[in-house]
């Protein structure tokens, strides 16, 4: 970045400078200035983007590739510099491991349970927030507050609320005549509970994103829909939703990426890397953590990481195809 300042003077110019008269000197100085200027204009953009790419290469791209390399080796946590080639064995082991399929299924179920209600509620909330409201900023800030709460803090609180014996949720259920639920030990109940933490943290955030997109919808569309006799619900369905399609797709992609990596909530919900006594809410992220840092198999952990990456790529491609199909039909 600072190279434009310290750039050495071109030799030829310097020679001309010593030989020339005052006028020449001025002119050559000007020329030198212009040349430096051009050099500066040409290379400074690269200097400005370089920090990002250098850091990304060092802490994003290189680790990504190296994880792929490590996934083909046996690497122990205790001696990570010693790598033993095993080819695809980590991957084939993975496919034979019931816990892998369990984690994959849990990740999928929790992903659906958390993403679908979250985005639907966010859409509805955004619609309500788009009305003329008294204290609209209060509502917006309040709904974004869960986003400021860390995964750890949120999960600790929810774990207490979902407590079997003294939790507030079971107490409330008892009031309406439902027996105590052992949230943590049941498969469905624990997955619902974990999903509810995700929903709590992200619904407001997504609502604000939808709200921003809704505010960008031109008034004319609503006006002509109203002229055609569409009521509010029909306007929402036939004007708002189609206008929001790119935003909705964007939030679906982001939420899916988030759901695939789900880690903190299931780790702290039960407080262990197994994701419950019978692994009933162990996600892929948690399974990776267990394999790497509790079974000391970094090679296998790398194989899980790459499997997650491949799943994300498939999801990305599917999204892209759906987006293309939708664009064609409309």
């Amino acid at each position, binding site marked *: 970045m600072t190279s434009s300042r310290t750039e050495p003077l071109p030799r030829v110019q310097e020679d001309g400078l010593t030989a020339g008269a005052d006028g020449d000197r001025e002119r050559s100085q000007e020329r030198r200035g212009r040349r430096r200027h051009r050099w500066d204009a040409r290379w400074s953009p690269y200097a400005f983007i370089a920090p990002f790419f250098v850091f990304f290469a060092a802490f994003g791209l290189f680790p990504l590739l190296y994880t792929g390399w490590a996934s083909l080796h046996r690497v122990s946590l205790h001696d990570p510099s010693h790598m033993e080639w095993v080819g695809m064995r980590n991957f084939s082991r993975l496919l034979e491991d019931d816990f892998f399929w369990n984690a994959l299924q849990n990740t999928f179920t929790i992903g659906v349970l958390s993403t679908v209600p979250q985005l639907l509620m966010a859409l509805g909330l955004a619609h309500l927030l788009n009305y003329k409201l008294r204290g609209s900023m209060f509502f917006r800030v309040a709904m974004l507050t869960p986003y400021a709460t860390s995964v750890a803090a949120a999960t600790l609180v929810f774990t207490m609320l979902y407590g079997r014996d003294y939790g507030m949720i079971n107490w409330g259920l008892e009031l309406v005549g439902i027996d105590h639920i052992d949230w943590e030990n049941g498969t469905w109940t624990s997955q619902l509970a974990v999903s509810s933490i995700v929903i709590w943290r992200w619904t407001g955030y997504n609502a604000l994103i939808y*709200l921003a997109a809704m505010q960008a919808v031109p008034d004319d569309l609503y006006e002509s829909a109203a002229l055609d006799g569409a009521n509010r619900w029909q306007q929402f369905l036939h004007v708002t939703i189609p206008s929001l399609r790119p935003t909705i797709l964007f939030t679906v992609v982001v939420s899916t990426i988030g759901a695939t*990596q789900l880690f903190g909530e299931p780790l702290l919900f039960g407080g262990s890397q197994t994701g419950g006594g019978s692994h009933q809410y162990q996600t892929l992220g948690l399974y990776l953590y267990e394999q790497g840092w509790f079974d000391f198999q970094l090679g296998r952990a790398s194989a899980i990481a790459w499997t997650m990456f491949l799943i994300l790529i498939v999801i990305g491609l599917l999204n892209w195809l759906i987006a293309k199909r939708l664009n064609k039909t409309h």
Partner: protein
Amino acid sequence: MLPTTAQRRARAAATPAVGTSTTTAAESPAGTPPRKATRRAGSAGKHLHAGRITYGILLLFTAGSLFPLLWTAIAASRDNQRLAETPPPFWFGGNLLTNMTTAWQDANMGKALLNTTFVAGTIALSTVLFATLAGYAFAKLRFRAKNALLLMVIGTMMVPPQLSVVPLFMAIAELEWTNQLQAVILPMMVNAFGVFFMRQYLVNALPTELIEAARVDGAHSLRIVWHVVFPVARPAMAVLGMLTFVLAWNEFFWPIIALTQDNPTVQVALTGLGQGYVPDESVIMAGALLGTLPLLVAFALFGKQIVGGVMQGAVKG
């Protein structure tokens, strides 16, 4: 443009919009000039005043958003025994300070808060600086392969952090950086979202003539950045800084692996609490409250700007 809008308004006034007529009538009493009323009907479904049901639902969701936090504070002000009784407490007790002190000492929350402030602050500063530089280049400068490089930046947002954990762990083991803060700072120094965010802002906010004028005056590019780009970018830089600070404060996966309870960030300390480091539930809640409080204060002070930032990033992203 003008006549058509007027025509449309007139037409809208002639045919009252279905389902909106009641609201319009209620909100504009007989005395108001008719023009105002027609405008409301014209923009049906958009700028309607909210009814009672809308307020009711919004208040319900607000309560749902805030209640877990409020209850954290309530539980933190009780003691372990009270939390093992039904019905659960709904109002504050007198143990808040005791529990906070215990959490501060036993769960290392004091050190954790200090560490996290340093980590998140450094990450926010460097992200804002590098994102502004790169965002400015992508928004206003001409260079080869610009579009391809910008696409690459966006593509990097897809890469999940799990993919770098193993090699990063091997690297810090080699460098003997385990438990040191630079191990969690360095991997987060730049951020693709930030670059994109600044680019989108500067494309519109920074007049190209301003840069050209400065260049004609003989200013070199660093001078331009300092005297032209930074002043214009300042509001967006502030918002990006706050968003990054929140994200860095709450970063979970990598710090858990790179740090231990001896030198924790807030999230590492809270994980320790959750894994039974301290058996007292009210102390755990006090720890959670301590770890969240700084961000809640920030939200109370800058909530408007943060909300604006989230919405801004959304429209353009």
